[in-house]
């Protein structure tokens, strides 16, 4: 764990159905309000979470999300970790390209979500799953 990084108590939510994507949005909204993100930053983070939760469901075959408030001593923020044990992403660079999709969507989920947050990390292995961590800091 990063030195000097304060972590709140993580809240988890399973993603196994359509209705869980709605629950993830609501959970992220609640935590973002508690972390005092601005309205625009809340909106960006909830939108990114919605995209990533849908990816976890559609491409990862379901998984879970963990939402935590973080504090780096100067600013508060929200960290969200999406984990699935799905097929993984064979070509990460391609998957992060605007307009690329294998699922019939617009191909903006992953690339768009990355633009909406401050920090974006993706760990993926074919056949093992994907773990995406995003952080949004208050300004």
């Amino acid at each position, binding site marked *: 764990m990063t030195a000097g990084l304060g972590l709140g108590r993580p809240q988890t939510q399973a993603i196994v159905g*359509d*209705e869980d994507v709605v629950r993830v949005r609501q959970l992220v909204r609640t935590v973002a309000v508690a972390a005092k993100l601005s*309205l625009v930053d809340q*909106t*960006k983070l909830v939108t990114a979470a919605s*995209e990533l939760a849908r990816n976890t469901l559609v491409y990862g075959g379901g998984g879970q999300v963990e939402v935590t408030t973080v504090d780096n001593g100067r600013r508060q923020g929200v960290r969200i970790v999406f984990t699935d044990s799905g097929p993984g992403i064979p070509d990460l660079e391609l998957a992060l390209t*605007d307009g690329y999709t294998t699922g019939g969507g617009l191909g*903006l989920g992953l690339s768009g979500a990355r633009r909406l947050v401050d920090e974006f990390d993706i760990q993926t292995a074919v056949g093992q799953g994907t773990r995406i961590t995003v952080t949004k800091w208050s300004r």
Partner: protein
Amino acid sequence: MERVPVLKIGDILLVSIQLDMEDQTALQLQEDLADRIVATGCHGVIIDITALDIVDSFVGRMLSTIAAISKVLDAETVVVGMRPAVAITLVELGLSLNGIRTALNVERGMELIAASREETDDWAVDLDEADPGQAATST
């Protein structure tokens, strides 16, 4: 799964989305609207998203699809009431909402539809004058 109600007001169908929609609810709305346009012969659709605190790529695509479906069914779609934070987020996400007309509120949306119907009517009159033979056969 909840359903979004579609209201008929004169020549216009009004949809006010008041809930955090599951993806299936959004897809159902597309079908419901197509059915109602054909059943009522309405020439305008207003989708009020005042209550939506986010529009992600899925809902964005739904709006574009509804506009396209309406168009081939001879109806004009106007999306009204987008919150400023939602607009900022949409642009950053990379969604352009191609083919969608927007207005600030329901009233202006209705004016927009009325104005565009007038244009269409004028055009029809011009055609009749230009080619009386065709006008005669079409009546």
